[in-house]
């Protein structure tokens, strides 16, 4: 009995761990005529889901022969699900990607080259060329921007006023890193951290690099910074952490871009650096008071850039690419859809719709439009796409920072480790 049990248990063990390897390879197929059903997936919060579903409803009304199924999840869960579905032959037709993942998925032949659709099913004439480039890889259009965003500091004015600090707002207003740090310390004196520790995301390090005339990745997909650069940046956040100007490790470690885990939303910090495409989410999750300020800078360059917060792409294994492309174009170019979507993915990518939306702007939409307008003359052109491997670099960056803030490694060692693993990730 014992022997049999051992084999049996081993078998059970094997099932559990090897089920992951069960991969069925069916997909593809030609375009079908008549009624079609496509699947459109994205990540984001409830607000984004609500308006996106409304826009999809409108699309289905205009195209009665196309049924669109929608799915959404938080960022991490979304990508776990997406990779499993694509590998399992159940790929969605229209997917939402970002800078870190577009290159990754294109490189692995998951995405359809949209060049043959552009000018026919997909209209891109309304999108500024610099923004449109955010969906191009080696000159080919693999994705279309779903919006335009730039970096911001979302803050609660009440918290800052209580500390006697007023962050800059309005055209031409800015602050230096020293002023910023001083403000955070003053806020900290009132009992709440000034801002969420911004050392966690490689995105904010990128802004800092731009301010110093450097970049995250070179044009040919290599690492554009050194361990010394990162050491300097993490020393900056480390000094602030010591003064409680930024959040404690147990708050910072939870950061994943989602609202429930945000240091600002959970009231552990008075402000938070993020993309302004999230401003409407802050306004609904935290309260109507949230305002946006530019990131601090010591020089002329703000370091901030205009870029697509998300792009839409059609899956290569989709059986209904035409229908998916049609929906894509509708989301980007249809004025009614634009009105519904508002600034759920940052400013509308289509310039004409952007003017229309911002012209009639209220509440959250107005906040994003106003902020973008106030920094319009300072934000650089869309920065290039992140290369393949950048998704892993981004994850490693945050993981190593966890070790740094919990005191498990020194800033210098951590920075060296990030550079070393990043070179491996980019090389593969």
């Amino acid at each position: 009995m014992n022997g049999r049990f051992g084999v049996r248990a081993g078998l059970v063990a094997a099932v559990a761990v090897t089920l992951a390897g069960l991969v069925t390879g069916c997909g593809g197929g030609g375009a079908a005529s008549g009624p079609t059903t496509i699947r459109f997936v994205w990540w984001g919060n409830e607000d984004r889901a609500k308006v996106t579903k409304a826009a999809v409803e409108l699309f289905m009304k205009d195209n009665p022969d196309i049924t669109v199924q929608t799915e959404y999840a938080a960022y991490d869960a979304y990508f776990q699900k997406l990779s499993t579905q694509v590998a399992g032959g159940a790929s969605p037709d229209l997917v939402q990607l970002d800078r870190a993942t577009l290159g990754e998925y294109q490189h692995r032949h998951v995405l359809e080259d949209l060049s043959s659709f552009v000018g026919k099913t997909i209209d891109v004439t309304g999108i500024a060329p610099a923004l449109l480039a955010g969906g191009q890889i080696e000159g080919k259009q693999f994705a279309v921007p779903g919006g335009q965003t730039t970096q911001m500091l979302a803050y609660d004015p009440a918290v800052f006023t209580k500390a006697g600090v007023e962050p800059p707002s309005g055209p031409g207003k800015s602050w230096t890193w020293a002023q910023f740090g001083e403000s955070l310390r003053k806020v900290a004196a009132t009992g709440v951290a000034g801002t969420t520790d911004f050392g966690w995301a490689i995105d904010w390090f990128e802004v800092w690099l731009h301010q110093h005339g450097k970049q995250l990745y070179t044009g040919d997909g290599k690492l554009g910074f050194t361990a010394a650069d990162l050491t300097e940046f993490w020393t900056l956040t480390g000094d602030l952490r010591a003064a409680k100007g930024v959040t404690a490790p147990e708050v910072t470690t939870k950061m994943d871009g989602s609202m429930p885990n945000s240091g600002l939303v959970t009231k552990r910090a008075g402000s938070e650096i993020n993309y302004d495409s999230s401003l409407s989410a802050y306004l609904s999750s935290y309260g109507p008071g949230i305002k946006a300020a530019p990131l601090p800078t010591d020089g002329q360059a703000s370091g901030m850039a205009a870029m697509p917060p998300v792009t839409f792409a059609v899956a290569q294994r989709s059986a209904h690419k035409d229908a998916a492309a049609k929906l894509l174009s509708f989301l980007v170019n249809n004025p009614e859809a634009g009105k519904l979507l508002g600034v759920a993915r940052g400013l509308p990518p289509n310039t004409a719709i952007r003017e229309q939306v911002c012209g009639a702007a209220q509440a959250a939409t107005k906040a994003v439009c106003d902020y973008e307008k106030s920094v319009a003359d300072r934000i650089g052109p869309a920065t290039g796409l992140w290369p393949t491997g950048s998704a892993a670099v981004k994850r490693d960056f945050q993981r190593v920072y966890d070790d740094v803030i919990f005191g498990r490694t020194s800033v210098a060692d951590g920075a060296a480790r990030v550079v070393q693993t990043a070179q491996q990730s980019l090389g593969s």
Partner: protein
Amino acid sequence: MTQAVLDRPVARERAVPRRRRAGRGTGYLFLSPWLIGVLVLTIGPMIASLYLSFTDYDLFDAPRWVGLDNYATMFTRDDRFWHAAGVTARYVGLSVPLKLGLALAVAMLLNRARRGAGLYRSAFYAPSLLGASVSLALVWRAMFSTGGTADRVLAAFGLDTGGWVDQPQFALLAVIALAVWQFGAPMVIFLAGLKQIPKELYEAAELDGAGALRRFRSVTLPMLSPVLLFNLVLETIHAFQSFTGAFVVSSGRGGPSDSTLLYTLYLYQRGFTDFRMGFASAMAWVLLVVIGVLTALLFRGSRRWVFYAGEGR
């Protein structure tokens, strides 16, 4: 493939009378749901994963043969692999003894209870029914996060630890606590084992002047040892395969600071986040071998301490 398996025994045993042969076929027919399940859902994927473990496979493009590269990388160049193995060792080493100890203690209490025994048994078993669910792990995360229930209760006793799941030194303990709390299954098995121990043995021991502790050591433990071995093997294997708790509590990241990065969680990350399914398959096979070896060692070691009644020892 199914057909071949079905045919073989029939062909070999020609001497069997016709009626019995037909009966055999019917038997296999009734077995077929299980047989097909084993072949399609177990053996097939296992062979596929063994093949994939020798390839570079990113889930989307065709696998590329790389020989033993995945295994070599794993053992020599992957710090996180060893880290994950260490976390898993700590997890298994702590959760299994704690869980079995608690299960045995509760089983002995319940063995004594007369009134309402059924109710208590169900109440203690309930967590095991709920425990494997994702929703419960979510509740666990909320309970052990900063400002959560556990944090506030501990703070009330002057233990201001903060949220366990947000700190690297405590996060794994929260995951272990979740596992230990689901002691229902071994508890029920212990209880059944305790009921099997003849009352005369205790009476005889008592007449000889044995105290409660002595009775436990000299009667209960030896008589229960086969059941103990069964539970030990089963729970050790379970613990090695544990995934849901750590996955949900750390939002799939194994954090904070990789402190809850169980082996299975790292395997999952490698396969589905880093798109290294070949590497993940290799990890799965290493885990299978490790579990197999440990199980064999447990059985081998058991000869020293497991007592089977009727063995004449």
